[in-house]
């Protein structure tokens, strides 16, 4: 038994717009801009319902689309625009140019991703200086006070917290619960039970903990484990009760 929860995510308004455009089957008797503008707004509404913060950038593009749409619906007449005001026609040209430019980088980022993937198969030696040559490395502790050491530790922790929190709100990191299901299955191999704390000892961030918890629930649903908790907020025990079967589950976190 497997389940699928997937929310389409976009890297920004241009990404969304390109996606909507690529799905269109162009019909010359239709008014494309009206359709695109509607779909764009529908998407924004749907993510608002999901309580995701909407970037002002999304709204700005929505306004531009509505502007172009409005101009297309009004009877044709020569309108006069100020020099520093952008006409809907100009706004459209700018938008097209920006979309083309963005698409170029989106394309090349796929190429870079492939290179990164290929490169990940190469490992370097990271052994450090061999014992025999250790005396050539300067003394790390010279001029270092305890206060400095403490400061360093706090700085690393802080840097880490910020980078964990700075997950871009428009591009959440997808975690596959199935991966965590497999991880838990491996950790339960050959044992009767383990506490949730033991299972998650190496989780480095909250999102990962949540994914582990979802994975435990999934295993419970599949009848592979039973759960026990002696008291409220007490330790959760994961008890092996069935055979290991793998299915597919994906969730976007």
């Amino acid at each position, binding site marked *: 038994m497997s389940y699928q929860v997937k929310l389409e995510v976009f890297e920004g308004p241009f990404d969304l717009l390109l996606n909507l455009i690529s799905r269109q089957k162009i019909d010359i008797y239709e008014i494309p801009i009206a359709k*695109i503008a509607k779909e764009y707004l529908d998407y924004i509404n749907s993510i608002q319902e999901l309580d995701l913060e909407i970037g002002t950038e999304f709204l700005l593009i929505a306004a531009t689309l509505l502007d172009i749409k409005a101009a297309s*619906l009004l009877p044709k007449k020569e309108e006069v625009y100020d020099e520093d005001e952008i006409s809907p026609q100009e706004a459209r040209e700018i938008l097209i140019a920006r979309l083309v430019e963005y698409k170029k980088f989106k394309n090349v980022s796929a190429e*870079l991703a492939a290179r990164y993937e290929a490169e990940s198969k190469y490992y370097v*030696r990271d052994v450090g200086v061999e014992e025999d040559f250790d005396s050539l490395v300067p003394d790390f502790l010279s001029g270092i006070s305890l206060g400095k050491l403490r400061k360093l530790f706090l700085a690393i922790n802080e840097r880490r917290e910020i980078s964990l929190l*700075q997950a871009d709100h428009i*591009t959440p990191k997808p975690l596959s619960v199935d991966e965590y299901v497999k991880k838990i299955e491996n950790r339960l191999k050959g044992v009767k039970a383990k506490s949730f704390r033991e299972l998650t000892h190496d989780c480095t961030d909250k999102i990962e903990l949540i994914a582990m918890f979802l994975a435990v629930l999934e295993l419970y649903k599949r009848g592979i484990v039973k759960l026990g908790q002696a008291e409220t907020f007490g330790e959760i025990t994961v008890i092996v009760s069935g055979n290991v079967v793998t299915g597919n589950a994906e969730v976007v976190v």
Partner: protein
Amino acid sequence: MSEMRARIRNIIESLFFVSDRPLNISRICEVTSVGEEEVKQAIEDLANEYRRTDRGFQLREVAGGYRLYSHPAYAPYIEKLILSFDHRRLTQAALETLSIIAYKQPVTRMDIAAIRGVNSDGVVNTLLNRGLIKEMGRQGTTGQPILYGTTTRFLESFGLRSIDELPPLDEFSPDEEVRRQIEENLRSSAVIE
């Protein structure tokens, strides 16, 4: 191979073996007191030998120097042995931002946001933390915004010898079909039903 040539090759191999960063030819010349031509010859000898005998490692030119890497064919075994943190996945947002910085460097955060259409500060900070980009000074305009560029680690992580090795950006322009689709869909002069 002459004895001398083999000796130079072995000395240089030992240097690659202990180094935790790419070594360039001038540093090797300096350390070994051997001329540039002989060093180049030795590097070629080593690279050929590893290739020919299909060893567990390879010599590669990367980020302005040469460095030993494990052979990619054996990656699955190495992964079983060690845990790697340097190859954590990059998100689509990070890849897009990195592409922009790589091709347009030096760029400001505003330049990046203008191309992506979305504020990219969080992604820029993440890339800074991971050492893939760095500050390159400030732009001489109002507000003097910080300029960003890619690092040596970026080159290493993507297996590039230098930034010039990036494929030409023009090759990635959307094709005619996509352009036409964009134009048509944002057309305002459509027939009203």
